[in-house]
């Protein structure tokens, strides 16, 4: 796999197509493994997608006493192996992004595996495939670097930069905030 997942929060339109599509992925048993949150609905309609960051040294795997969370050669962090998982839920507490969830009925942990059956062949994961606003993208590393550079440049052109204490206001401000 030569590509990475790239998120651009301010593009998110809150449609949750990514969640619906996640349920459609091969072995996801109709449960979504990514999430969309409002920053603060009472203030603005700004939403953002929350996906597994596929950490290089994932907290979920580190805190797993049974060593049930495997990482593929490509760096994809998989759901806990059923035969090893002891159901302690350390992974759900350990992840700083709240990604792993625990199914109490089935007694197993599930998390985003970047649609491994797709992404290992360089086909975009379902969430990135369908995202109508391209808030979630499956792109080359170089393209990601370019996008990040351009974003910083645009911020400079527009004369905007985040300030201490108002980081949540920053995104709506940049794209036109509602005023009376």
């Amino acid at each position: 796999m030569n590509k990475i997942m790239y998120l651009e929060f301010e593009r998110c339109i809150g449609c949750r197509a990514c969640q619906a599509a996640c349920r459609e992925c091969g072995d996801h048993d109709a449960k979504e493994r990514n999430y969309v949150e409002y920053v603060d609905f009472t203030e603005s309609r700004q939403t953002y997608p929350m996906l597994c960051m596929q950490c290089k040294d994932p907290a979920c795997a580190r805190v797993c006493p049974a060593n049930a969370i495997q990482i593929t050669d490509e760096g994809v962090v998989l759901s806990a192996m059923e035969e090893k998982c002891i159901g302690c839920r350390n992974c759900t507490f350990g992840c700083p992004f709240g990604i792993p969830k625990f199914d109490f009925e089935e007694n197993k942990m599930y998390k985003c595996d970047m649609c491994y059956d797709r992404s290992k062949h360089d086909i975009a994961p379902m969430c990135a495939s369908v995202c109508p606003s391209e808030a979630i993208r499956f792109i080359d590393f170089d393209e990601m670097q370019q996008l990040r550079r351009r974003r910083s440049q645009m911020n400079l052109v527009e004369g905007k930069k985040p300030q201490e204490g108002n980081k949540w206001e920053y995104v709506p401000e940049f794209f036109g905030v509602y005023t009376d």
Partner: protein
Amino acid sequence: MSDFIAKEGVQNLHKPGEKLITTHCCYCGMQCGMHIRVNKSTGNVVGVEPRYDWPVTNGKMCPKGVTAYQTIDHQDRIKKPLIKKNGKFVESTWKEALDLIEKNFKRLQEESGKDALSVFGGVSMTNEKCYLVGKYARVGLGTRYIDYNGRFCMSSAAGGFIQTFGVDRGSTLPWTELEHSDCFFIAGSNTAECHPTSIQWFWKAKDKGAKLIVADPRETPTARVADVHLDLKPGTDSALANGMLHLIIKEGYVDEEYVSKRCNNFEELKQNVEKFTPEYTSEITGVAVEKLIKAAHIYGMSPRSVVMFARGVEQQSKGVDNVRLYSSMALLRGQVGKFASGVATFTGQGNGQGGREHGQKSDLLPGYRKLTDPAAVEYISSIWGIDPSEMPKPGVSAYEMFGEIEKGNIRGMHVICSNPAVSAPNLEHIWNGFKKLDFLVVSDFFLSETASFADVVLPATTWAEDEGTTTNIEGRVIRIRKVTEPIGESKPDWEILSLIAERMGKGKHFSYKKAGEIFEEFRLATKGGKADYYGITWDRIDKENGVFWPCPSEDHPGTPTMFEESFYTENGKANLGIVGWKEAGEVPTQDYPLFLTTGRVVFHYLSGNQTRRVDFLMEQCPEPFAEMHPALASRYQLEDGDMVKLKTPRSHMTVKTKITKAIRKDTVFVPYHWGKELAVNQLTSDCLDPVSRMPEFKVCSLQIEKLPTKKGVLTRE
């Protein structure tokens, strides 16, 4: 590379034992390309796969599209005809149901004449079916009373475009050009929620520096990312557009060469907008003067701009005027008929474009021919094999049909692929109409709110069990493919209509064996009309990724960009909109001090008859809500989630509040996708646009009252 992956073209995951059938989504006008996954051995639909090679949507889908396939074998599907006996539906055979329909239809026509029957169509169907509904009403039943739910959705855009450009094609440019535009002026459209897959094009353009201006009373997810958000009072669009025209002229942004060569009435327009200074416009609309000036500046300075609008400006008692004025903005800038610029309306229903061209409107025949034009009547009569004298006269519009029921002129109705018991305004009038009918037949695949009033419900198929064409948001004619066999004893609409027509003694006019035969007749019927599909064939659609109408011959390439040379008016020039400013049909008063406006949420489609049955979508948005500003909420001592009683001069309902700063302080928004006691259309006004006869869903006056917070099921008091 795995064997599971398609070897050629863009890659899709291809699982063993499955085949991918290429088709389009059944919901909105975007008609997103998708593959449906079908189990090869059982023929069952098992899922969906994005279609990366469809140029309009590139594999993008919204949550409705992703879950659309789940309606196909849903447990609620009606699998056999239902007949109401002692107030309850009982399953029957097709023969029994058709016998009953024949008996009652004939009885009503013998007692009260041919026009005792009526047909209420819809535009979430293929072109073939839409065409056939018109023929079924006029030839099969011989009635003048036919109209369709597009009257609630598209007719003001149609009226405005016809007056301005001489023809009604929703978009003058293909969507794939949008990424090259420099400015989008979007009025009354919550694009991100209603046409989500369009958003990628705006972002592509925005990444290159394009600007976005959004006029909307709510800070929708679309308005949130706008460079200028014109937060106007509901119903004041014509003042806003006149104000923009004033500024475009005053600031010298007019493309004078274009206007003198290609537009009528510029001097009158100039005079008309003279008084719409930013200050006067601001007074009416409530939008700050600086914002108006900034918007006009951005729009006026953009070399390639697109004016887009949707139901927000069209569902008003002056919707046609609004469309004319907004279109005039593009004309003054010389943008219509050029690359990556022009005018577009977002079609709300799947075939909102095609469905309005082919004779479902009370006054139109296929190909946009007028029923009042003797030559048109003669031509269509020759295609249909009837005498021109047999052609019924124009009827009345959708909402007005219920007035005719009240008067006793209409006694029987056949509702096809539509759910007016949720989607029409002033619902108590509609419900009373249905109760008063002597005989109501509904064709649907779920038991909709309208179907619950029926005497006979006929099980129709979903979009995946039939084939045909639809016309998408851009005017591109595309193919819908058959994915699976009809469930139970359900039948495609065209087959149902043919069976009834046969029972009414008109079988020779409806001897179709497959949808393709209807398409061939339909092509001929549109030949020479303004909406000319004659040159379009199913093969061409497959080869060319869809064909844009007008396409008068098979060697014609189709028309992606409209009006490059001239317009369809008498002198070939566009008519600029000379329209003043009028109040909405109903405005706030002392008793009803607020504005009520309605619309969609991203998780539901139209009356919600389909999307309310999909688990994922219902989990995200299970019930309607009253969205209001914290300042308004505090005035009534309301907190988020409190129950609130909404009351208009017509009726009242109870919903939960949802508090957000992303709406005007004088406006309450409620989505309309629910029926019965949760239907906001109980409250909406029945003011109609004088030209398009479209109801004013977007504005009415409202009173609110706090109720003791109640948990659990909402009930109507």
